[in-house]
């Protein structure tokens, strides 16, 4: 999923300062799962905003709405019937959702309420960790199912570097060395011979370096 974290309250209050009536829009997908911008978080932020503005002596009207999926124009359309009443839309979706709404309602400021973080998975309750860098050319089959791009601090293809200590990365004892994990898993799979092959330099065109990416499926076009 795409993970996100709510922006600091001070920053949020500053960003809505010019407005008197806003629509706070959540998303029922990834940000709901990572507890950053679902219905519950929308309600909590709405209350905090109302209180914050009362304290400032400039009350703010905040209406709440959570869409099924903000990054889908079909759902973003649902805002059309109410949007004219507001000075601004405050989105609690990831950057994809914010932009979909902004593109649909060009005359209205759309403000991000969360910082979109990474594509990750839940490690345990309340902990999410990066798992995929979206590089466009998956190598997990060569690396024991552990991604060296997303999980090695130096995205080394032929690791580990000299900084790997007791299974941890040189940057922090809280970060696992991806190459230790890869090696352990390759051993478990009986695939250690994969390690001795030199992995070729990455063609980063399939990643962000090739420019903004699109997927076009002719077979899906209507």
């Amino acid at each position, binding site marked *: 999923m795409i993970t996100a974290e709510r922006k600091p309250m001070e920053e949020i209050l500053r960003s809505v300062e010019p407005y008197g009536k806003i629509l706070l829009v959540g998303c029922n997908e990834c940000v709901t799962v990572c507890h950053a911008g679902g219905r519950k978080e929308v309600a909590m932020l709405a209350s905090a905003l109302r209180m914050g503005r009362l304290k400032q002596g400039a009350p703010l009207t905040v209406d709440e709405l959570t869409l099924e999926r903000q990054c889908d124009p079909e759902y973003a359309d649902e805002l059309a019937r109410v949007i004219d009443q507001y000075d601004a839309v405050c989105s609690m979706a990831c950057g994809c959702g914010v932009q979909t709404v902004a593109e649909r309602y060009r005359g209205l400021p759309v403000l991000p309420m969360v910082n979109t973080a990474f594509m990750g998975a839940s490690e345990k309750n309340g902990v999410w960790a990066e798992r995929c860098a979206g590089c466009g050319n998956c190598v997990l089959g060569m690396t024991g199912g552990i991604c060296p791009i997303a999980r090695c601090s*130096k995205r*080394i293809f032929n690791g580990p570097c000299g900084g790997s200590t007791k299974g941890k990365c040189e940057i922090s004892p809280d970060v696992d060395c991806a190459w230790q994990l890869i090696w352990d898993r390759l051993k478990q799979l009986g695939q250690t011979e994969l390690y001795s092959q030199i992995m070729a330099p990455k063609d980063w065109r399939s990643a962000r370096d090739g420019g903004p990416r699109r997927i076009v499926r002719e077979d899906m076009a209507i």
Partner: protein
Amino acid sequence: MKSDSNLEKVLAAGHFAVTGELGPPRGANLQAIKDKASHLKGMVDAVNVTDNQTAVVRMASWAVSLVLKEMGMEPNYQMVCRDRNRLAMQSDILGAAALGINTMLCLSGDHPSFGDHPQAANVHDIDSIQQIQMVAAMRDEGRFMGGAEIDTPPRMFVGAAANPFGDPFELRVLRLGKKVAAGADFIQTQCIYNMERFAEYMRQANDMGLTERTKILAGVTPLKSAGMARYMANKVPGMDVPPEVVKRIADQPKEKQAEEGIKLLCEQIEQLREMPGVAGIHLMAIEWEHRVPEIAERAGLLPRPQV
């Protein structure tokens, strides 16, 4: 010969090679380089010039390498993958080669979080093993990484670093093997304090036939004080300083700790000379360049061969 590198010549002639190290200044201070370098002249066969070591900005390693070259020394131009993509790397290599730099060392580089610009983008377009392949292919095939032909290929003697003490230990020699397969002509290791573990590493490297395909220079660093010994033992990632080594330095009164460090170093060099497969040492006297002549003399490393 693959290059005009003095280090290559010394190694090819079968001498026990000695390389030193010089950290560029944090400023445009030419005199500081010359002062440091003057202590190393005639003491070593090549001088590593570090590239923004510990991710702290310093004068460019190619520029300092040229200063050494002008002083009649052989620079070992270090280049890390952290700060440059493949375009920048290859253009710098061409420039360095054109201006007489013959030896280079391919490295990953410390993570930016350790340095003075933790905000910086962390490039890693290619890794150090792919970098070795790239430099070797530029020289041997006369081709850029993108495939185009090079008019006058850079004739670099290509080195790589190896840390025999990182984890997992069983991968260390395998990864060394990958560096050799990638084309590393020589290897300089991380500082060695755990001789037993290093001897085991060398035994594995010999068994795999790696020492016949590359020249391994064992890294050594004199411990200047008990404080430094403890720091190396506890704070430097991937460093193995056994407790008895720390104790040996710490048991001395403060004013005698540096002397004990040099004694220990000389004993280590003696052991390394006898160790099968070790082709030389890489002496990293960190901010202690002025003591290198004394160390080289006492360790019996002088005079350096003229080849």
